[in-house]
């Protein structure tokens, strides 16, 4: 009987682990794309071709800027959701 009491007391000290793990929220794959490098202009090209390269570079900038804004929005939204109940 003495051993049973001792064993009960000993086992009662074994705490179980809390079974909750919060996963870091997964970002959309669309946002994980890197910005494309800007295009350089070769020497001796005509002005019209040069302007096309400039326009392409501006387009890439705007796409990259859209991604950046989306990241900011994603971060703020995730923070709002996961801090809501704390």
């Amino acid at each position, binding site marked *: *009987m003495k051993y049973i*009491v001792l064993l*009960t*007391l000993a*086992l*009662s*000290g*074994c*705490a*179980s682990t*809390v*079974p*909750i793990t*919060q*996963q870091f*929220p*997964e*970002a*959309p794959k*669309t*946002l994980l794309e890197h910005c494309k490098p*800007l*295009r*350089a*202009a*070769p*020497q*001796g*090209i*005509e*002005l*019209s071709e*040069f*302007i*096309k*390269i*400039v*326009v*392409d*570079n*501006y*387009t890439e900038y*705007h*796409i990259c800027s*859209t*991604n950046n804004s*989306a990241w900011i*929005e*994603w971060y703020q*939204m*995730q923070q709002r*959701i*996961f801090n*809501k*109940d704390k």
Partner: protein
Amino acid sequence: MFILNFLPSWFFPLLAVIALLLFLISRFISLPQAQLVYYLSIIIFALSLFMCGANFNNDYWLTKIKEVEIKLAQAEAQSAQENTKIVEKVVTRREIVRLQGNDIVKYIDREKLVIDENCKLPELVIDIHNKAIK
């Protein structure tokens, strides 16, 4: 508590009642080993009361864990929903930007003769542009 995972919740209240009954029996009915039963019943009663409290505490935290799990699941669902909205917005915006770029390129192609007619591009301009993109 580890031990509470293996015992049903009614076990310790039942043990407490049994210990109480043993205590009363040892007090009012003459038994062989009455002294031993008397002291054992007190120890078992105290222990079972302690374990009842531990069980209650365990149940309380399990309920809390369930609540947090539900909240987390809701937050994850909301997060996934908002992710879809953001992706839709980004894809639409990218498409608009690409279309605008294509329109400008088409316009340049149409006006190619006018643009190239009287202007020869100095190499210096291209050098400056290429330096700026690095």
